[in-house]
């Protein structure tokens, strides 16, 4: 089911921390059911940009954002937009896996409970479905009462993905989701991302260029708060048009 519609359209986005510009005039379209990787050296603004897409930057005092971010055709920075329901549509996975110190079941059931679902049977169905989608069900199905912190790092990160999926978002934002994991766990997360894109639009920030190459369809290269180049991942890694992109993907700086 190929669907090349534009899920997220970012126009002239600027972001300031106080007076310091962290993002400068970003224009980027993100296609649905594709994996878009944001790459660039540390401090280039890729994570900051990612956090603009579910308004997590709102939590930081002194941040000023200009420009528009259209998701499903609607500007999420419009004053009438409810941030809480926006975040239900746009899930986020963090760099460090951060399960709640609750059972595996309660971790996944957290968001449904917040949304007022209390029926045990209904919750169980959501939990099973979400854990299956996150390719974790077979590993934890007999230990749903165990603490979410008792499983391995890679499993914890997949638990966090399952927890996000339980809200039934359309978009998943991932902020270096495998940077703290060993290669095998990383590989599992990457496989999962590859599978999830059938049903979700995924934007992933990674400082690992090879990871961007392995998992993404589109790659956007950020440098010093600017979007330098964006294109098909295959093109970005074989014949980038910008010299800085070429230098970065070939490991000559950063």
């Amino acid at each position, binding site marked *: 089911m190929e669907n090349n519609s534009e899920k997220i359209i970012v126009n002239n986005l600027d972001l300031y921390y106080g007076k310091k510009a962290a993002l400068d005039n970003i224009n980027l379209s993100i296609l649905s059911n594709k994996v878009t990787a944001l790459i660039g050296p540390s401090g280039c603004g890729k994570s900051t940009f990612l956090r603009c897409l579910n308004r997590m930057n709102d939590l930081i005092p002194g941040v000023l954002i200009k420009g528009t971010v259209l998701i499903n055709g609607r500007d999420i920075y419009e004053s009438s937009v409810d941030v809480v329901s926006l975040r239900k549509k746009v899930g986020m996975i963090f760099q460090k896996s951060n399960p709640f110190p609750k059972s595996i079941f309660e971790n996944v059931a957290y968001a449904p409970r917040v949304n007022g679902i209390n029926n045990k049977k209904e919750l169980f169905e959501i939990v099973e479905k979400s854990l299956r989608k996150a390719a974790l069900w077979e590993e934890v199905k007999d230990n749903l009462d165990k603490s979410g912190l008792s499983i391995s790092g890679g499993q914890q990160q997949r638990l966090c993905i399952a927890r996000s999926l339980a809200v039934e978002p359309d978009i998943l934002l991932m902020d270096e989701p495998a940077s703290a994991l060993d290669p095998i766990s990383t*590989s599992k997360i*990457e*496989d999962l991302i*590859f*599978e999830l894109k059938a049903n979700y639009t995924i934007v992933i920030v990674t400082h690992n260029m*090879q990871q961007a*190459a*392995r*998992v993404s369809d589109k790659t956007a290269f950020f440098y010093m708060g600017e979007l330098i180049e964006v294109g098909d*991942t*295959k093109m970005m*890694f*074989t014949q980038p048009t910008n010299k800085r992109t070429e230098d970065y993907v070939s490991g000559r700086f950063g």
Partner: protein
Amino acid sequence: MVQKHFGQELDQLKNSLTQMTSLVTSQITMAAEALEKGDLELCRVVKSRDKEIDAYENLIQAQCENLFALFQPVATDLRYIMSAMMVNNQLERCGDIAVNIVQRAQKTADHRQLIVKSQILDMLRAAQSMTLDAISAFLHNDVDLARKVIAQDDVVDNFNKQIFNDLVERMKKDPQVVEPGAHLIVLTRQIERMADHSTNIAEDVVFLVEAQIVAHRELSAGSEKPSATS
């Protein structure tokens, strides 16, 4: 366990290679038949289909480049994609040779007696079976078959010398034979090169499976390393 995305891309490459090999196989088979029967229609078919092989060569080249750029393959995967690139190249040349064969076949269609007498068809059959075996060895990772192909190269070389001498003798005796004879000598060179390409493919198979470089055996391991340039 191969990563899913990598596995998928690798499968696409294998798929392209399978298509490419079956195209080349059918081109060579048709070329041989065209030469044997002097079938000019078949000659035109072979010529027109060469573009397809060229398109596949480009596709496979791009697929290999992507696999290198996106997945940084190592070990078996690395050798597989390297040998896929090399085999791709050899296959395309075999395709070109099929075209060359039918070109000569068109020009010598009136001298079928000469063709039959000069053992060229036997040589072509030997080379053709080498090519088919090499392709089969590549598709099935069959080292034994590959080694058989490498050993057969001498047979074709011997045919080449014999036919050359035979044709020269015939041309000395009869000036009428000079023109077709010259065409046929060029043709044997082509067939001999097809056998060489098949041998190269077979050597790539040994490299792929056993990680051994068998080409240029006279440079036995370690004895004559090229001096480092820098």
